Every structure is written in structure tokens, then in C-alpha cells.
């Protein structure tokens, strides 16, 4: 599975890279746990809500270009062929 990071999530202290390849965990929530374990508390603070049970308000998680809110949220299942895109909240125009 491919995981892509954008904006400041590419910086050291967060993911520190643009993308990585990894075995697909079962869900987006598990992916968040694995990435947080790997990258540390700053990343966890972005990925999860303060209570740790929901996705954070400052993050956008997409699976193959679809926001997980329109799939199964943090319980969205993942497959080896998936691409997960992780953005901070952004805007422009």
C-alpha cells in the first residue's frame, strides 16, 4: 500500500517524507496507530482527536481520492492496492 503526505506533514517531526510503501493494515484507524507509533506524538496529535477515538479535525484522510468521511470513516478497510493521501486542512482558490 502507498501512503502519501502533503504540506507540513512532510516535514521532520511529522512524517518526514513525501510517501512510503507499507503492508496494508486492516483499517484507516490502524494505519493511524501504526504511523503515530512510527512518527511520534506530533503526528498522532494531527491524525487523531484529543480523545484519540476519532480522526483529528485538522487532518484530511483520503483513500484513493475519496475522503474517508464518505466511506466508513476511521473504520474504512484498506487493501494492498490502495493509495492513502493524508493532508492537513488546506484551502485556497
Amino acid at each position, binding site marked *: 500500500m502507498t501512503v502519501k503526505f502533503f504540506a507540513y506533514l512532510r516535514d521532520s517531526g511529522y512524517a518526514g517524507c513525501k510517501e512510503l510503501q507499507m503492508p496494508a493494515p486492516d483499517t484507516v484507524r490502524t494505519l493511524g496507530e501504526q504511523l503515530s507509533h512510527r512518527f511520534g506524538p506530533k503526528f498522532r496529535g494531527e491524525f487523531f482527536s484529543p480523545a484519540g477515538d476519532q480522526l483529528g479535525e485538522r487532518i484530511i484522510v483520503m483513500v484513493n481520492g475519496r475522503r474517508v468521511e464518505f466511506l466508513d470513516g476511521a473504520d474504512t478497510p484498506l487493501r494492498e492496492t490502495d493509495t492513502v493521501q493524508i493532508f492537513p486542512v488546506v484551502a*485556497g482558490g
Partner: protein
Amino acid sequence: MNNGYTGLILRVNLKKGTIVKEPLNMKNAGDFVGARGLATKYFCDECDPQCDPLGPENNLVFMTGPLTGTCAPSAGRYNAVAKSPLTGTIGAANSGGHFGPELKFAGYDGIIFEDVSDHPVYLYINDDQVELRDAGHLWGKDVYETTDLLNAECGESFRVACIAPAGENGCLFAGIMNDKHRAAGRGGMGAVMGVKKLKAVVVKGTGSVRVARPKEFFQDCADARDTLKAHPVTGAGLSAYGTQILVNIINATGAMPKNNGRDGSVFADADDISGETLTAKYLLRNKGCFGCSIGCGRVTDIKEGAFKSRGEGPEYEAGWSFGADCGVNDLAAVCDANFLCNQYGIDPITMGATIACAMELYEMGALPESDIGFPLRFGDAAAMVRCTEMTCKGEGFGKILALGSYRMAEKYGHPELSMTVKKQEMPAYDGRAVQGIGLEYATSNRGGCHVRGYVISPEVLGIPMKTDPLVTEGKAGLLKTFQDLTALVDSAGMCLFTTFGIGLPEVAAAYRDAVGSDESDEDILLKGERIWNLEKQFNIAAGVEKDTLPPRLLREELPEGPAQGKVNQLHTMLQEYYQLRGWTGEGIPTPEKLQALSLK
């Protein structure tokens, strides 16, 4: 006492050379707020909708809003309104920088330019001293040269709004540039200025803007600024990366048109032209307009190579038009083309999209190479920049490109390949992958445009709520609210980007305490709806074509990405939209609706 307003406008007849200071129509100011709305009201009351946009009957109205020049957040805006030579619709172009506030500090809410001069002139405003001056020595100069010469002539502290050769030569999408790098960009307001032989407006003012309830107003503004600073977008993201940060997320959504939309909307090289790459490779610093805490502007420098150049930008829309839409993955070339547009006074959205259309016409064999002078394939960065430069300077094939993509594609027998609504190019979001933005393009009162109701915000970015971009349910109501609120924000004189962090309650509070009104939030939002209907009335009277989208968006399924197989379902949203607006099934405001809005 005209709280929020100066209470004076300038009426300049360019043929007679007369300048009259007249009281602002306060009844109209109350009904249409200011800037976009009030300028449109003045324009509609005085001009025939059937007038030739490049003729003497087409007035050009500059107007600020009641919050322009105050401490309200990002309140540095003015609007330029005339009938658009590109679309035939009402044209209303909005710009930031410092020009609008300076006009108010000089004592004027706006300027109405009537008729045409028989020789180049500029308008000089130094508080009470207002005069038309000869601009023969400025004609033919670009934006930077013109601004520098006028600052040398009038004083460094004067603010300058001007046109460049593109406007002088009648490019239908020439803009008005102020403070060198800020643009009232869309719809060809610069071409209207060029016909009038009005090269520039220079202004310096030493006054200030009075508000009705200062204590409450300052608290409103402080609260709003705190909210904006705490928001991850307006407090951090936009200043760090600029609007170009949208490239990757729009591309991931499968909504960034590639190769004139011919090949779908997933651009494999998106990261090469992204905000992240711009920041890493070319950004010198960010920059803000008057009273702005966001600072989304980019000061960028291409230090070496074929596209060595320096300037400001690009914004996301220009990054897309010169990038993915032309199949170009060279960010330096994208920047160079954008800088040229600023220097010569051209709307970069229409410029890039028109070149993309020409590339498609060329590749299909409809546009002969002999007409262009060189090959023009998707992905050719040098050819893209060359086309931009030719258009800016009015040279060779650039004269055809200067007509915009619709008239060019029509000339070569394929108007359906122009990605326009009402002859103005749609911006950087594919209406097949984001359903609501397709409805927004179709119904925009100034033709294809994203900032008349930016539903990308809820549909893709999740601000202020999350809605699925692939569904049509609820989009009509959402869009109507966004359109009305946008008309209000534009007319108040604030930057639309503030609405990523604040909304109607904050804008309405600042408006109330600035002008001394006790109207409810709903009453104030109704002014936005009134403005929207006024614009629509003008367009109907002008004979503008119906609300629709290019056939590509309605019939050609997206070939790949998250929206694979999708087209825009305009027909399922449009009737609901008309119904919510109180319009007929043909999109015409009913007498009852007009009466309810106090419109004739």
C-alpha cells in the same frame, strides 16, 4: 454622517474632461452595500444592457465597500464593474492590495468613468485635488514601468491602478492591475479601460474611515482576527504555502483538469507544480494586502534557466491553467507565464485555458501550425510561455489568443472545445468530479468563475462542513447560500478568503457596527441575494445565453480517478436551484421575487 462610507463619489466624463464630486446615493448604499453590489447598481441604473462593451456607452465603475480601509480583517478590496467584453454579462472584477483603501482615505467611495477620451489620460487624485492628466508618455508601457513612472511623477506614496499593452490592444481578458501585482483580473475590465484611453488612476489620501460604533466595531474586528489566526487555514496554511497548496488535494480528488479536460482530471506530475514545490524551490517570502493577517501572496524568484524571472504568484488557478491544463510540469515556466500576465495586465486563468484549447485544436489538426508559427502540443512549456508573451504583446497568433478560447475555437470550427461558460473560461476544478462547482459555473453571473460561490470549500476541503463531491443532493441550496454570502462579502470590501475562518455572523456584526445598522444577520444576507438578482436581471436584459456547461462536462465521462465514469449532473440540480431562488424554470426571477427584494 456617512459611517463606513465617505459619502462622495467622483463622476469623470472622459470625453468632456469633466470631474464632478457628487454625494453617494445612501439609499442604494443601504440596499446594495458597496463595492460589487453598489457599483452594479450604479451601472445598471445608467447603462443600457444592450450597449457595446467596447463602446462609449459602457461606463466603468470603481467602488469600495463600507469596510474597505477599516480594521476589519482583510478589508482592502475594491471592485471594477462594467459590461464585460468577454462575456457580455455584467463584469465585476475584485482586487486587493492597497488601492481601494487609499481611495477612501482620499475621500471617495468610488469613481464612475463615462464615455471615452480622445487621447490617453490618467486620473490624479490627491485628497481634494482631482484632475485628468495626459498619459501619452505612458501608453505602451507595461504595469511595472507605468507604476514606476507614475510614482516618480506623482510621489512614491501614491497608489496606482493601471492597464498595460494587453488592455490598450483590446485583449478581451485584460485586467486592471493595482499595486503592481494585484489584479481586478477577470472579464476584461482592462479592455474597457483601454477603449476609454484611461491608462491609470493614481491616488493618495490622508483621511480615514469613520465608523458608527467604534468600540463595538473594534471588538468585532479583534474577535474576527483572533478567529482567523486560530484557524489552521487562515492562521497558518495559506501564509505558509499560498493558494497553490490546493494542487495536490484537488488532483487527488480527480478534479484538476488536464490537457483542456480532454484527458480527464488526474495530472501525474501534480506535485511538480504544487505549493509544496513552489515553497521549496522558488518562494522568497509571503505577502499580504491591506489589513490582512493571512498573507497568501507569494513573492517568487526563478534564479536561473530558460524561464529565469521574478514576480508574485502564481495562485492556484494560474498554476493549474499554465500547468496541468496545458500538460506542463515545469513550475518555472508556469511562474514565468504568470509573471508575464501580471506585467502586461492579463487574466492568467483565461490565458492558460485559451492556450490549452489551442493545444487541443492543434493536436486534432483543426488549428494549422502556419497560423501559430510553431508546434503547440500539450506539455510544451516553451511554447506555452511563448503564446503568453505573444498575447501580452499583441503579436502574431497572440491576436487570436487575445479573443479568448470561445471565439478562437469558433474560428477554427470547434466551439465545443472551449471550456467556457458564457464565453469565460472555467477555473481549476472539474465539474464532473465535484458536482456542485459545475452548478456554480453554470449559474455564475459573470461566466465561468469559481469565486461567485466557492463550494469547493465544503465539497473538497470540508470547510465549514463536509459534503460529498460526487452527490448532487443538497448542492443547489448550498450554492445559493454561498453565492449570496459571497455577494455580501465582496460588497462589504472584505477578502473572500476570510470566509474560510469566519462567516455571516462576523461579517454582519462588522457591517452593522461600521454603518450603524440594527439589521439582523438574515436581513444583511438578503442584500447579497438582492445583488445576485440585480446581476441576473442585467444579464437577462443583455441577452446572455442560458445557464449551462460545455458539452465535455455533460457528456464525456471522466476516464480515471475517484470520479471515473462521472459527468456533471447539471439537469438534476438546476431546476432545484431555480426553485430555491424563486425563479422560473427558465431561470428568470419572478415578479414576486423581485418585489420581495425591492427590485423593479
